[in-house]
């Protein structure tokens, strides 16, 4: 019975950590733009050097935001199995597609090539970078700030009849409820354990049995999610929520430092792509 009831502890995405660091105080519009640029740059960066630089920038941001490094890295832990499987699949089956450079080993359709190995390393690093960036962004920015930043950055699209506001609202709500559902999940897991459930004791190859064993978690969680959604709708409507013509309590005011930081970010992203 190896079980721990603390999903909430492993989820750093969507958690806000109050603080007064440089990153915390950065105007969220500029911060969002800068982080989007970084993530874009990391996505396009093909070389080892570029990715190492990306990782360095990442860690430097974590340091600037005064987030304990261990805590930021913990968020990666649940993603590790996916990363490994993804890396393995890419290593085995993508070699032929990226068949530039030396072929190390070949058997049937499995090709291990230099290009393939590079792809695996680069894409794993990319993934880590992106997750860290998103963690830093959400740890230092409240969801309301984030949604408003997104709203103001995407505003031009409203002219093209894109429902920007509804879209931003959806994202805010989704992010806001990640930790809530993690806590809810812990509660249900405990309640089921208290009446005899033991999770993770059925070997993985008995797929049907193993799937059935999580029904006691998944079904109540879905019920709660639907209930919550309904409550949220009612709460919003009873407070007169409309999607158009909304004003906000606080208005953005960019300071020079905010703009400077954005330029630093643009420079760094440029560097990443060309490295």
């Amino acid at each position: 019975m190896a079980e721990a009831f603390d999903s909430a502890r492993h989820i750093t995405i969507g958690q806000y950590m109050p603080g007064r660091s440089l990153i915390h105080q950065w105007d969220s519009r500029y911060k969002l733009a800068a982080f989007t640029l970084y993530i874009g740059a990391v996505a396009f960066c093909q070389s080892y050097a570029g990715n190492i630089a990306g990782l360095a920038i990442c860690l430097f941001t974590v340091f600037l935001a005064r987030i304990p490094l261990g805590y930021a890295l913990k968020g990666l832990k649940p993603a590790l199995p996916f990363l490994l499987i993804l890396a393995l699949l890419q290593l085995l089956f993508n070699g032929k597609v990226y068949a530039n450079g030396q072929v190390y080993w070949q058997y049937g359709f499995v090709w291990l090539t230099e290009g393939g190995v590079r792809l695996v390393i680069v894409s794993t690093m990319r993934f880590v970078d992106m997750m860290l960036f998103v963690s830093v962004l959400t740890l230092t920015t409240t969801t309301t700030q984030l949604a408003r930043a997104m709203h103001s950055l995407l505003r031009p699209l409203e002219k093209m009849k894109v429902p920007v506001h509804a879209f931003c609202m959806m994202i805010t709500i989704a992010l806001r409820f990640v930790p809530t559902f993690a806590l809810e999940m812990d509660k249900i897991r405990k309640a089921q354990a208290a009446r005899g459930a033991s999770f993770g004791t059925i070997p993985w190859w008995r797929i049907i049995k193993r799937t059935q064993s999580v029904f006691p978690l998944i079904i109540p969680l879905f019920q709660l999610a639907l209930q919550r959604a309904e409550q949220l709708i009612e709460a919003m409507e009873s407070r007169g929520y409309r999607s158009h013509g909304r004003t906000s309590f606080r208005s953005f005011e960019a300071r020079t430092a905010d703009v400077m930081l954005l330029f630093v970010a643009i420079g760094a992203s440029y560097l990443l792509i060309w490295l």
Partner: protein
Amino acid sequence: MSLSEFAVQVEQLSHTYMKGTPFQQEALHDVYFHAKPGECVAIIGHTGSGKSTLIQHLNGLLLPQTGQVNVLGLELSESNRCALPEIRRQVVVLFQQPEDQLFEKYVADDIAYGPLQYGLPKKEVIQRVKHAMDFVGLPFETMRNRPIYALSGGQKRKVALAGLLALDPQVIVLDEPTAGLDPTSRQELLYKIKRLSRDEGRTIIFVTHSMEEVSLLADREYVLAGGSNVADGTTREIFANRELIHRYRIGTPQSVELVHTLIVNGYDMNSSTFGVEETVAEVRKLLRQEVG
């Protein structure tokens, strides 16, 4: 006192949530708690006093970070994880809003979940489900094939309780069992709990805000505040301690309130009076004195 005298024994228990993260928070500090077999013990305290954390230690959902937890003669600790299935079978916990944990489509299936998890033979499971349903007041024949989503809140809670009773536990832990129920369902549930304790001799530990419930059910109480013990004793002792009641804003039953008010106003009464009948008797005595 020897270990075997208690069904549940907690000594110097401390617990910190999310240890090693920026969000860490101490929920329990040097807490002790004892319950003898067959006793009905209440845990009282405000939100954030550590009640819920404490009861999660009683069946090993949380394991002690420091301190000892001994349940039915078994030590609960990281190194003794193999005792957990046995302990969870003997000690069940009914959490707040237990109706949220029901997941099967039909009533009887959900109640049978626990016993089936422990691998009991089908025949015995059916027997236990029937017994548990009859006990909580859901007639087996008519209710077993009802879909759960069609039940009322009070009925769902009965299903949740039956699901635990089907495990035939020795110790039953209830976290605010009557919260959010209408008065009738509430009365009914309290009566069921009383029967579990008095007639079936099971050890009952319950968390509550309601002193009416305490005076109705509990033999002894523990009062927690800010993650530490602040008082414990028999129901009579706790209710007699006016200073304690005021300091921790324990909501007293109306009968106790009346007695305390009379004492404050200079009437000579026994301050350890509680319960409706006793209070009535005391007030009668007082009236007789006044008249005479």
